[in-house]
């Protein structure tokens, strides 16, 4: 079925670009938008644009944030000697919801997936290494860029000081909070092989998380237990 209006058809087309939205769902959403008050539609449109214009990536942990560095990296009470490595920003949210984790994060931006052609150079793995050792000490065969060794230009002196403080902090533990599946396993083994020669312990949350399950869908209690019961690789 096609709408007889070109504008509605255009909206349907655009909506189908979103993940998990097929044509039918897009048509239902478009029909709903047609009935909404104009002010509400404007709010949605503005929120979409604001996300692109205002949200940036934290220089330290690569989480999404309005202010760089992000609130977690800014917080003086967070333990900067423990870094929890996650696949994406949703996993940070899931772990923050447990209210039990006091360390900081590192967002990889994905996981290693040979079947999808995603390797370490597509992820923020070299940037993770950069938080553990100085750029010169990262083995050359770790693909990727060294990240921003100097703070980006758009941050103020206070932010710059925070970035430097993180770089100076001695990291004692890396907690790998990747999903318990083939891609998560591949990522975890790769990172642990890189980090093993350093004086940093590498643990992985797994206990209580069933293989194949997505971290994002774990309830707080399960995730807390998983964090608590993390084991070395």
């Amino acid at each position, binding site marked *: 079925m096609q709408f007889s209006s070109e504008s509605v058809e255009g909206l349907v087309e655009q909506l189908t670009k979103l993940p998990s939205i097929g044509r039918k769902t897009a048509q239902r959403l478009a029909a709903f938008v047609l009935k909404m008050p104009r002010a509400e539609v404007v709010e949605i449109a503005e929120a979409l644009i604001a996300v692109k214009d205002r949200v940036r990536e934290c220089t330290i942990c690569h989480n999404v944030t309005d202010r760089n560095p992000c609130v977690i990296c800014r917080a003086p009470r967070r333990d900067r000697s423990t870094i929890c490595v996650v696949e994406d920003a949703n996993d940070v949210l899931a772990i923050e919801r447990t209210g039990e984790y006091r360390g900081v994060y590192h967002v990889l931006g994905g996981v290693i997936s*040979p*079947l999808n052609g995603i390797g370490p150079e597509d992820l923020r793995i070299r940037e993770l290494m950069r938080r553990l050792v100085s750029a010169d000490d990262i083995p050359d065969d*770790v693909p990727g860029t060294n990240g921003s060794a100097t703070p980006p230009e758009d941050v103020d002196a206070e932010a710059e000081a925070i970035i430097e403080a993180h770089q100076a902090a001695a990291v004692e533990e890396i907690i790998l909070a990747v999903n318990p599946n083939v891609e998560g396993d591949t990522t975890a083994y790769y990172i642990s092989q890189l980090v093993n020669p350093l004086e940093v312990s590498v643990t992985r949350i797994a206990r209580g998380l*069933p293989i194949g399950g997505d971290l994002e869908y774990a309830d707080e209690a399960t995730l807390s237990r998983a964090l608590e019961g993390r084991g070395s690789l």
Partner: protein
Amino acid sequence: MSTIVRTDAVVLRSLDYSETSQIVTLFTRERGIVSVIAKGARKIKSRFGATLQPTSYIQVVFYYKPTRGLQTLTETSHVERFPDVHRSLEKLVIGQRIVELVDALLQEEEHNPMVFNLTVGVLRTLNEADERLGNLLAYFRMQLATALGFAPAIRKSDVTALTDEGGRLDLNTGAIHPSEVQLPQSRGASRAALRAFAVIARADLRDVMRMQMEPRTQRAVDGLIEDYLRYHVEEAYPTRSDDVASQLSGAGSSHLRG
């Protein structure tokens, strides 16, 4: 009209779909490659548990409708577990390269019990083996070529006739020739590499796993097998996991390459 199918299968890949589901590509014993939807597979308490990970050897039940591209998965259970395939980077990557090859080189719903048994056998060995995992991948590629209908035509006398000069592999027939023979589609290689090629093509898996090769010979024979397979399957040859494997090989696992 839909029928209920119960069959053994190897999981080739899983793709997240909608909120909590997955689209899973299965290599089934009965019907070859079939794509199914596993509803709720990513929920923490999914009824599919750990069965839908690539390289899993499982029994599946699904509703099959020939007019439909995606069948609905209803039940799964492990036939045999290969836990060690998930316990090292090298094994994880080889396992994924094996399923990638099956996925890329077999047609949808192409019934091929020979490739099925080969795949399960190789995954089982991958689970058990402690060393020479590179031999395993070489064996798999070569046997896959044979199962797909282009077994190399190797004569024992051609192999024994090889001199220190080495020889040439005819990419079209898989025959081995002396180095002076002029062939349009061929590759030159050392005697050791061509001998290894011949052994991997003819010997059983157990013997191949006992083969001790110099790293140089290993690389050369991997190159020969890859060229031979590529010559026959052309564009279908998958390269994604090869690319990732070479990126990963830096982290102290040099034989992931190849």
